């Protein structure tokens, strides 16, 4: 077996533009619930863009300058809206049993995105610079200490919190998102219950 040929075949089959970007979808994809996934994705892109600008300019800029504080506010609200749409997206996919017909990896990657996003967002809250950040950083250390996480992670070390929030966890989320989107497109949208074929 020629592995290179196999890989080429696989790429041609799985990354075909007709598969990834179809111009036609089944007629049942007309409910408003299908919007929540793309709205969640739009929030994620907004968080990445505002986050990169904030990282580049630094904490003093986004805490004390007017324009910096505006970007901080955008990042804050984008996170709130992100979780709102992601929660609705998750619930609707649960109630349509979105894992049917070979879509288990789509479900698992989505659930991991949800869980890791919670931790990522909490790290963001700890970087807010206000009393909430200070109070919850001290409170959260008890859970981290109890599970023995201090071996590799000290939540009171802002260097580690910063690194997790702006580099490590976003990279994990982007990887999971690529997997999630790939399986959504390659498996297409789950058919209505009763029309599984």
């Amino acid at each position: 077996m020629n592995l290179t040929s196999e890989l080429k075949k696989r790429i041609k089959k799985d990354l075909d533009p007709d598969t990834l970007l179809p111009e036609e979808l089944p007629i049942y994809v007309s409910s408003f619930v299908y919007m929540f996934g793309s709205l969640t994705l739009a929030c994620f892109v907004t968080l990445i863009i505002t986050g990169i600008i904030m990282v580049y300019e630094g904490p003093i800029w986004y805490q004390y300058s007017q324009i910096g504080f505006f970007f901080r506010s955008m990042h804050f609200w984008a996170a709130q809206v992100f979780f709102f749409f992601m929660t609705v997206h998750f619930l609707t996919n649960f109630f349509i049993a979105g894992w049917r017909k070979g879509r288990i990896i789509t479900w698992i990657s989505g659930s991991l995105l949800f869980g890791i996003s919670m931790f990522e967002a909490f790290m963001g809250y700890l970087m807010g610079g206000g009393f909430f950040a200070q109070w919850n950083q001290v409170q959260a250390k008890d859970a981290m200490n109890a599970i023995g996480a201090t071996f590799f992670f000290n939540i009171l070390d802002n260097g580690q919190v910063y690194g997790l929030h702006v580099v490590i966890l976003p990279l994990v989320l982007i990887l999971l998102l690529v997997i999630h989107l790939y399986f959504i497109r390659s498996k297409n949208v789950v058919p209505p219950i009763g029309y599984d074929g």
Partner: protein
Amino acid sequence: MMDNRNVDTKSLDSRSLDSQNIGLKESDLVKEASVSFIAIIVLVILLSIFLKSPNTPPLSVRGYAKNHPIGFVTTTLHDLMGTSAIATYGPPFNNNGTAQNIGPISPGGIEGVTLPINTKNDFVIIPLQMESSINPNISLILNEYNNATKRQQNIWEQNTLKALPNARYEDGLVIFPNGNYGPVVQMLNELLKLGQSGLFSRALTRENVDNNGVYTYNEQNRLLFLQGAPLQAKAASLNMLGGEWGILKETGPYPGPWWLVFYTSLYQTPFYANSPAADLMAFATFSLLIAIITFLPLIPGLRRIPYIIPVYKIIWRRFYNEQKRSKN
């Protein structure tokens, strides 16, 4: 835009759809994504303009020393005596307490002391030694304290602790009634001055031999110095204590991380709240929930819930109605 053509693209689960004559409709995913992005940007900009974002300043060591001098002196006295919350915490800071455990399972205990803290030295003696390079008089009181026996030190500290309720703040000093305090009261007042100057914060997160003077972002000691009464008092005034769903509450009229509602709700139940292993139990429960959600499609019973609570009939009502009409 619906044209009900039969499915023949390989991108769809064509065999199953074909066999049931489910049609296709035109779609523009790029347009949909662009519209979603613009809508979100506009929404976020409007929220940012009209509502801004939370901005309640943290409790600073300097602010606490200025506004609560007796509280500051009390905190430093307990750190000196080794009776503060951190001094008696246990792993990972020291061995003066026990790590949380569920039966024989104690990850923190197995891990041991990974972030060693000696509050007497780290929060009191070393900052005073640093200050003594500016004010040599401090060396005299430090020497008197360090040269005393443990028993003598303990007598001075206990006398100071007993006299604290009668102490008063006057002209930048905490004045104690006459008594045998040795150098302890002077040490506490020197630390108070250091605190009020703003230099104590940096004395806590100082360069040290462990990091070879390399500057870091580690705020551990500054945060832990304020742990306990100083932060508790401010959190209580903002109704942000753990028993008040504190983790979900941002300061001001802003939403906190409401998506952690299940995790926080555990701390509101007596079973968790009254347990000495509350954090370990809550974390384990939450992790179990995430695992159940993640692998839900593989769990018999739970994966049938969508069929038992038929919300899907509302979501696809238009499709089902159309199918019914076309059959009739």
